[in-house]
């Protein structure tokens, strides 16, 4: 949701893909560094104005806290927790060559599951919430649903 200076709030929809490298710091704490490509569609045009759509890339660093909540030989390992971090984004507006920069603090709730028969793969659901610290808007924040797959190098059965 975004609100420009002198204009009211409107919703915009978006999506993206990210490639993350996750470093385990302890059994329940991880460091996640990622690069992301994303796009945000323009808002509706009610009232004769709209917020521009934009697409671009971002780099982010997050600290993840994921204690194990369930571990059984049949089901595998399930972890639940959250994370917090900061992203730096460089998008450009749709139809233009105008690039701009902003910082984006983000938090997310995460649950993931490593199936018993697939120790190298972890399936992850997340609920990210981010605040875009854009200097050209009164406020801008986003919430969404994330789906991910983690591959763990050197995982043992």
């Amino acid at each position, binding site marked *: 949701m*975004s609100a*420009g*200076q*002198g*204009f*009211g*709030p*409107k*919703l915009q*929809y978006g999506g993206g893909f990210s490639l993350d490298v996750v470093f385990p710091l302890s059994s329940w704490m991880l460091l996640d560094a990622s690069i992301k490509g994303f796009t945000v569609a*323009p808002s*509706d*045009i*009610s*009232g*004769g*104005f*709209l*917020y*521009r759509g934009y697409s671009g890339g971002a780099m982010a660093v997050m600290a993840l806290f994921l204690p194990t909540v369930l571990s059984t030989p049949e089901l595998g390992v*399930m972890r*639940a927790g959250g994370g917090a971090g900061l992203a730096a984004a*460089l998008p*450009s*507006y*749709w*139809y*233009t*060559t*105008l*690039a*701009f*920069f*902003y*910082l984006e603090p983000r938090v997310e709730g995460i*649950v993931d*599951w490593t199936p018993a028969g697939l120790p190298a793969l972890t399936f992850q*659901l997340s*609920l990210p919430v981010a605040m875009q610290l*854009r*200097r*050209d*808007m009164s406020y801008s924040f986003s*919430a*969404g*649903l994330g789906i991910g797959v983690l591959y763990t190098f050197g995982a043992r059965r």
Partner: protein
Amino acid sequence: MRKALRFSAFGIVVVALASCSLFDYSNLVVHKYALVYGVTVYTNAFPAGTGPNLLYPDADASAMASLLAAQGYSVQSRWVNAAGNAITTGNVDHGPVGSLATSNTDGSSPSGGAPADAFAPSKANIIADVQALSGVLGSNDILVVYFSGHGTQDTSTNPAREFFDPYGAVMQYIPDGQYYDFPVPSVRDDELRSAFDSIKTPRKILILDTCNSGGFIGNPLETDWTAPSSAGSAAFVNPATLIQAIANYVSMQSSPTGLSPYGTAMVLSAAGRDESSYETSAYGHGVMTYWLLHGLAGPADLNHDGHITVLESFAYAKAGVDQNWNPAAGSASSFEPHVSGGPVDFVMF
């Protein structure tokens, strides 16, 4: 398994919530106004297309005024046509403009005027027209200001200033007999900015089909990776773009020149700050204006929602110039339309 289901359900709640029209502004009443100007003949000492005179700005202005009026805009217009006559709203012909000349290096105190000059798109008339709307436009109304003619840049100042040349700005300099565009009777970017600031609506759109018109864009935040003088668009964001964007984010300083998109005006310019734009007999219009008019007639509705925004019209015009003019024009005569930054776009039609 139960936890996975719970997250799936939350996803549906998010989608349903976001699909509601939580922020519907459709009850806002937006009145639409336009000021349209063009100068084909700057001096009646020569016919159109000769000397400092152009060929098609009156055709540009006439077509733009008709299009905007057909779309519900209240249009006021002034142009000097190819016959050298001053024409105002409703195609009222006020007769021939003068053949101005000056002995002053700044263009002040010209001689050779004619009675029709009082109706021409001069600097005084353009600024007065804008200021007259300050008590008319409400905070949600939209104003389009269009100008077709000459434009120039003064690089002797720091920062360099951009001008567009209304009637009276291009005239003969008596000491050497040559024709120049002079700063005093031209409309400078900061002078227009002051006039625009008297109008309270932030929905102001300035469209300039002139050389150097990109200099009227004053983005304090965005970095345009299409160069101010280019022979084709840049392909990618480069490291300099990133560095400049970060520097702008840190400073967010008001641009020293141009009109800020944050409240002053969104600018759609035919050319970059440091390059020329062109007109052609093949179109009977300025090149950018031709593609702008073509797009505004319908094809610029790029997302097929039944409306055309400023960005859509810009994108269509830019593509028209890029795909149809620039390949044949070659690097010497290629140019690139530019547009202001800012997070907001406006519905034109």
